Structures are given as structure tokens and as C-alpha cells.
């Protein structure tokens, strides 16, 4: 089942250019998964290796590719990796990471600042 979307993907002619890089990253995953099915730790290590060379912004492309290929395990892994990358980071960092801009009105923005400040207020430090 994992391979039928892949087959269509190769059948469509003009997919060559940019997505090649993504394809080489994502497509070997199912094979590797089958080989290391029982051993989760080994799979984790393989995945860590894979991502060490990938730029953070590339991750969003990987997610879209995994989604397109209907590959749930890879999707879960890439989403978790992005989640880990944006945790404990400022709101501005997250915006830059995704190339987003704030579209809140000034009044809303002020309210959100207060809300954000509240989330830091009075939490016991260890």
C-alpha cells in the first residue's frame, strides 16, 4: 500500500527537478522500515543520521512529501522532528522558521503579549 502512490509519482513525468532530493530521502524509508521492523532503536539512529544533514526548513518539504506519498510513519517522524525543533523557541523564531508573518491587529497583538507574559508568570523555577 505504501508503494502505489510512489508508483504514480514516478509515472507522472514532470516531477524530476527539485523533488529528487526529497525523493531520495523519503523513498528508501519504507524499505529500511521493513528491514529494521523489530528494532526501534536502530530505526531511530538511522533517522537521526538522515536528518543531521537536512536543513530545518527542508523538514517542511519532507512533511509534504511524506503526506503526498501517504507514508504515515515518515510523516509522524518528520512532524515530531519539527515539533522538537520549534519547542522552547520564541514566537519570532517559529515565524522565521515557517516564513510566516503576524497577521494580528495591533490591539490583538497587545492582548497576545499579555497572554504570553501570563504563561511565564509565577512558575516555580527548580
Amino acid at each position, binding site marked *: 500500500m505504501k508503494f502505489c502512490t510512489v508508483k504514480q509519482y514516478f509515472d507522472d513525468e*514532470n516531477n524530476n527537478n*527539485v523533488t529528487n532530493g526529497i525523493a531520495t530521502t523519503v523513498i528508501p524509508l519504507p524499505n529500511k522500515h521493513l528491514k529494521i521492523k523489530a528494532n526501534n532503536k536502530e530505526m531511530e539512529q538511522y533517522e537521526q543520521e538522515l536528518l543531521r544533514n537536512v536543513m530545518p526548513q527542508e523538514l517542511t518539504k519532507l512533511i509534504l512529501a511524506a503526506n503526498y506519498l501517504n507514508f504515515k510513519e515518515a510523516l509522524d517522524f518528520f512532524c515530531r522532528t519539527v*515539533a522538537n525543533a520549534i*519547542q522552547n523557541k520564541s514566537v519570532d523564531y517559529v515565524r522565521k522558521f515557517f516564513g*510566516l508573518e503576524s497577521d494580528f491587529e495591533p490591539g490583538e497583538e497587545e492582548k497576545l503579549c499579555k497572554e*504570553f507574559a501570563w504563561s511565564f508568570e509565577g512558575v516555580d523555577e527548580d
Partner: protein
Amino acid sequence: MGDISWIGTMSLRKGKGKGKGKGKGFLSLKEEEVEEEVKEEAEGMWAGMVAELLGEIIKRVERSEEQWPNRQNVVACGCVCKRWREITRQVVRSPSPSHISAVPKITFPSCLKQPGPRHIPHQCLIKRNKKTSTFYLYLALTPSFTDKGKFLLAARRYRHGAHTGFIVSLDADDLSQGSNAYVGKLSSDFLGTNFTIYDSQPPHSGAKPSSSRSSRRFASKQISPQVPAGNFEVGQVSYKFNLLKSRGPRRMVCLFKCPLPGEASNSKSLDNINTKKPEYSMSGYTVLRNKAPRWHEHLQCWCLNFHGRVTVASVKNFQLVAIADQSQPGGKGDEETVLLQFGKVGDDTFTMDYRQPLSAFQAFAICLTSFGTKLACE
């Protein structure tokens, strides 16, 4: 996003593999036309698809950051942009289905006005500052009574003639009605035995603000014009004293308009309800009273079982059960389950444990009345 071949892949996904013919059609268009069409198609799909995938990312942030202070990261997700905010709010509202009894977690300040958990109460601490007549509510992060936890709300008691009142705020340093952080207030009658609880936000669509002097003054400082400013009456707390035994336990009755879980912020759902029913029955009333303590002949005192969460005897200590509970089938309360428990554990430290249908704000407000009644003897 000038990467056209990448966008090109996205538009082909639309056909889900059936796009073979579509792909060929693409090739016959001129380059500029392709670019335009692909861009339009992709933007529409990109937005739709990304929302779902963004949700997957944010869900993973939410699930791994259940406890404060790390829960700040979920709040951060809600501050990125409007779409992120909407997705984050949805993720917070619907916890992972793998949880057996999904516990609503306090994430945004708005969660403070949402009902608490159904089964295991949220355990909180209230710290009193006698000098400044201020009270601080914290969500306990450890079982210890000396660790404060996550700050939730602050309140300041004021006396206006013979009336006692409290201002409740999200900001421990700004306890004024005109502030952005103003959440609600309480005011008592002349005797200090009846308190009215006001919410700064309408509890349901169509609610009208109370017409008091202070609410008209407040209206000029409103930040978002969409939300009507003012104070909305949402509940009452009454104390009745045991006249026969002056040191006997007092009786408390609380009346609340309780939104059902999920109803509060979604005013649209009220429109779908059978319009023949009168408005007041849609969001029902919840009536609570305090559980009567038992006289312990041997110890010569009134006793309630606080299960270790209250350690100092005080006339302020209480447990509330429901006579009427709109979150239960038939609207009937079981008069047994303790929905709010409040009691002393130190000179200026009190525990507050609350659960559905009460929200943190309502629970805090009820507990504050305990500090406001002048006829209490301790």
C-alpha cells in the same frame, strides 16, 4: 515561494494518482500560464493541506508539553499568526483520543473560564497576603503545599463603605478594572452574606451586561469592539449562619449559569438549539451547597473528610456538592460528589480543588467569598 517545480508537485497531488492525464495537459500550456494556474491552485491547496499538517505538528508539541512551565510552548504556538492560533485552540480543546478520560489542561487564560476535569479535580493553591488584601491562585505542580506552581489569577479585596468586593485579574501586578488583564469581580451586599460574581466577558451570546456605574465607565476602555464591554452577572454565593449555635458550621449556597463543556466559546451552537425553548434553559443553572460536616463527639468538633488536602481547622473550610448540575443527565446533581473543596493548610495558604462543571474562575470566586464574609469567626 518562487520554487515553481516544487509547487508543481503539489498541484499534481490533487488528482491523487489519477493526475496522469492532468499532468500531460499541463505540458501543453505556456510557461507563464502554467505558473499562474499552478500558483493559484497550489495556494488554495497549500492552505488547506498545510492546516492539517500544521495541526499534526502542533498536536505533537501539545502532547509532549503537558505540564507547566513547558506548556508555555503551546501558548507560543497560539501567538504565531491567526491560522496557528485557530489550530492551536482546536488542538487544546480536543485532547488526544488515546486518553481514557481526556483531561482539559490549562493552557490559555481562556481555559480558566472553561469547566474543569470530569473526574480528577485540578489541585490549586491560594496564597493570601494580609497586608495588601491580595490573593493569588496557582495550579499546583507538585503535591507539596509549599511549592506554589503555575500562577493563574490574582484578586484584591476592597471595601466600599459597608460593601466588600474583589477584583480578579490575570496580572498579579495589575488589579484594576480598566486593565487588559481584568477578568471579573465580586461584590457583596451590605451584610456581606450575599455575593454576586461578575465576568468581564459575556458567558453566552446575547448576554447583556449589568447596568452598573462601573460597567459604563469600563466601556470606554474596551480593546476589542466586537466583544461587549461591561460586567456580566454569572453567579451568586449566599451564606446563611447557624443561628442556634453561633460557632456552628455556616451554610453556603451557590448559583451559577454553567456553560456545558464546549459550549462557552462557540456561540453558534446556541443558534442550532430548538428556538422554541426559552433562552434560559439552554445554558442551565447549577446549584451547589456545602456538604454538612458531622459532629465528632469524641473530638468535640465538626468534621469533613478532606482527604489530606486540608490540614488546619477553620470555619472557612468547605466542600461543595451539586443539587442541580446541568452537566449531568437530567440536570440533577448527586449531592455527594465534591465539586469544589477549599481549606486551610498554613497561615496564609489554602488549597482549592475543583472539577466540572466549575471553571477555575468560578471556583476561585467562590473561595474568595470565604475571605469576604465579615460574620466569619475563625
